[in-house]
C-alpha cells in the first residue's frame, strides 16, 4: 500500500500548527495595537477648513492670546469657536476685501455660520469641560500641542480615557502658573516636580478619577 501522504506533509503539519498558534496571537494583539495608533485616534491629521485660517500668523505674528477668540474656555465647558462677529471686529478694517476672507464676509452678510470642521472629538458620553482645567493650571498646549506652529490644526493627543487618566492620576508634571496658561513658550522648568507640587497645593488641584467625574 503506497504512503497516504508525501514525506513533506510532516513539516507541513508542524507549519500549520505553528501558523495556527501565531495567527491566534495576532488576532488577539492586532486590535489592541491598532486602537493605539494615530490612524484610529485620528491624531496628527490636519483638516482642511472652510476659511484658510492660520494660527501661526495670528498667534506668533499678531501675538493674539488664545482666550481672545476662544474666550469661553476659562468659564464654560466649551472653548467655543468664535462667532463671525468676532472675526469681523478686526477684519472689518484689516484686509476688508481680501479674497481669502470671502467665506468670512459671506457668513457675516448672509448670517449663515461658517461650517468649521471638528478637529478634537470626544464621545458624547464624555462630559469634558475646559473651565476647570484652565483654572487648575493646565495650559492649552498641554493637550492641544503647539497650535501656534500648525498651518492647519491637527489633534496632538490621542484623547483616549487612558491618556486622560494619566494626568488625572498625576497632574504634577503638567501644571503651570495660571498667568501662563496660554503661554505658547511655556516649557516645564527643570524642577517641575517641585513647582508642580507647589502649584497643586496652591490651586488645590484634585482631579477626579471616579467615573462620574466625566461620565454622567
Amino acid at each position: 500500500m503506497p504512503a497516504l501522504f508525501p514525506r513533506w506533509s510532516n513539516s507541513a503539519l508542524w507549519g500549520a500548527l505553528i501558523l495556527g498558534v501565531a495567527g491566534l496571537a495576532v488576532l488577539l494583539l492586532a486590535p489592541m495595537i491598532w486602537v493605539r495608533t494615530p490612524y484610529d485616534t485620528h491624531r496628527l491629521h490636519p483638516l482642511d477648513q472652510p476659511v484658510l485660517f492660520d494660527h501661526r500668523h495670528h498667534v506668533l505674528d499678531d501675538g493674539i492670546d488664545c482666550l481672545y477668540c476662544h474666550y469661553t474656555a476659562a468659564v464654560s465647558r466649551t472653548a467655543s469657536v468664535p462667532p463671525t462677529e468676532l472675526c469681523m471686529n478686526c477684519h472689518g478694517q484689516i484686509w476688508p476685501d481680501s479674497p481669502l476672507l470671502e467665506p468670512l464676509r459671506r457668513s457675516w452678510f448672509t448670517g449663515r455660520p461658517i461650517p468649521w470642521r471638528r478637529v478634537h472629538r470626544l464621545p458624547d458620553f464624555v462630559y469634558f469641560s475646559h473651565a476647570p482645567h484652565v483654572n487648575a493650571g493646565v495650559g492649552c498646549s498641554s493637550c492641544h500641542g503647539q497650535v501656534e506652529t500648525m498651518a492647519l490644526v491637527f489633534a496632538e493627543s490621542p484623547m483616549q480615557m487612558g491618556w486622560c487618566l494619566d494626568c488625572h492620576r498625576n497632574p504634577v508634571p503638567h501644571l503651570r502658573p495660571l498667568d501662563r496658561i496660554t503661554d505658547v513658550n511655556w516649557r516645564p522648568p527643570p524642577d517641575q516636580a517641585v513647582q508642580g507640587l507647589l502649584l497643586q497645593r496652591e490651586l488645590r488641584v484634585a482631579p477626579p478619577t471616579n467615573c462620574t467625574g466625566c461620565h454622567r
Partner: protein
Amino acid sequence: MDTRAESAAYSKAVDEPSVLLTRAPDAVLTRRLLAPIWVGGITWKVLFLVTAGGTAIMALAIAYTVITGIGVWGNDIPVAWAYAITNFVWWIGIGHAGTFISAILLLLEQPWRTSINRFAEAMTLFAVLNAAMFPVLHLGRPWLAYWIFPYPSTMQVWPQFRSALPWDAAAISTYGTVSLIFWYLGLVPDLAAARDTAPTLLKRRLYGIFALGWRGSSAHWNHYRIAYGILGGLATPLVLSVHTVVSFDFAIAQLPGWHSTIFPPYFVAGAIYSGFAMVITLMVPIRRIFGLHEVITTRHLEAVAKMTLVTGSIVYYAYAVETFLAWYGGSEFEMYTMLKDRISGPYAWIVWIVYGINFVAPNLFWFRRIRRSAIALFAISIFINVAMWLERFFLIVTSLHRDFLPSSWRMYLPTFVDGAIILGTLFFFLFLFLLFLRFVPFVPISEVKELRHELAKEERELAERAKEAAHGR
C-alpha cells in the same frame, strides 16, 4: 467450551451482565463499529434535515433578539434573568456527565465506561457549546461581551473580579477547551483505524490528516496513555469546579433563595444527575438503532441508573436542607420565598412538578427490573431532563419575582422568542450529535478491543479454575 458459554458462566459467577458480550475477533469488531461511518441511512438523512431546520429556527430567533434587543423576551424588572440563564445552567449541567464518565471513571478504572465514554464526551462538548451561547446572548449589548475578560484596554479599566461572572467565563472556557482536547486525544487511534479502512482515497486522506499519523507503535501507545491519564487528572477537578462556579452566580447574590452556602454541592450533584439522564436519553436509542446490544449491555444501563439514583438522592437532600435552612435561619424574606412563595405562590405548580418527578424518578431505580429495562430508563430520563430544566427555572424566577419590596413584585411570562430559542438549542444539539454519529467512531474501538482481550483472559482463567475444581473432586 465456546466463548459465549464462557462469558455466560463468567456473568453467572460475578452475578452481573458482562460489560461486553461480543467475542468477535478484532477485525470484525473494527468493521462493525466503523460501519455507521461508511454507510449512511435514509433515517439519518431525514433526522439531519429536521434538526437542521430546527437549528435554523434558533438562528432566526437569536438574530431577531440581537437586532431588536432582549426586550423581545419576557424579562422585566424584577425578573431580569429567566429563560436564557435557565437554559445556560441546564445545558452546562448536562455537559457534566461526559467528562465525569471519561475522566473520573477512568481514574477509578471502571470497565463499563469504555463503550459509552466517547459519545458521552461528544454530548458534553455540544452541551457546553449550547450553554456558552447564553451568557453572551442574554447581555443587553452582547457585542461588548469581551469586556468581561481582563486585557489591557486603552480605558485602563479592568473587569471586576468580585463578581462571579468573570469566574464563569474563565471556568466555562477552560472546561470547554479541556473537554475538547480530551475527546480528540481519545479519538486519535480510532481515526487511524478509520483511515486504514476507509473505502476511498479522499476519505483515507481526510481521516489521515486528523489521525495525526498515528501508527499504533508501542511508543505511540506509551505517550498516548500518559497524556490521556494527565488530561483525565486535569478534567476531574473541572467537573466539580465548573458547576460550583456557576452556582456562585446565584450564591454570591443576597436574594432569598439564591443566597445559600449549599449551592455548590447542590449544583454539582444536580448537574451530574441531569447529565446522566441525558446520557440515558441518547444511549438507549443509539444502542437500539445501531444494534449495539453486545457492546452497550444491560450492565451499562444498570450502572448509569445507579449513578442517577445516587446523584438524584443528593439533589433531594439539598432541597430538604435549603428549605430547612430558610426556616432555621429565620430571615423573614428567606422564609417567605422558600416556605410560602415556592410552596403556594403563583409558580408553585412548577415547584411541585419538580419535587414530584425528582423524588419518584430516581427512586424507581431501586428496582433491578426497572434499572435493566431500556424502555423504562428512557422514559424516566425524559422526565428527569424536563424536571431539571424546570428546577433551574423556578430557582431563578421565584427568587426574583418576589424579593424584598412588595412594591416591585411582578410575574414573568415567556414570549414566543423565548420558546423558539430553547427549542432551537435542542435541535442544534441533536444536529451536532447526528454529525458526530455519522463522521466519527462513536464507540471507542481500540478501547473495546482492548477490553475484549482483558475479559477473555479473565474468563479463561475462571474457566480453568472451574475445571481444576471439577478434577479435584
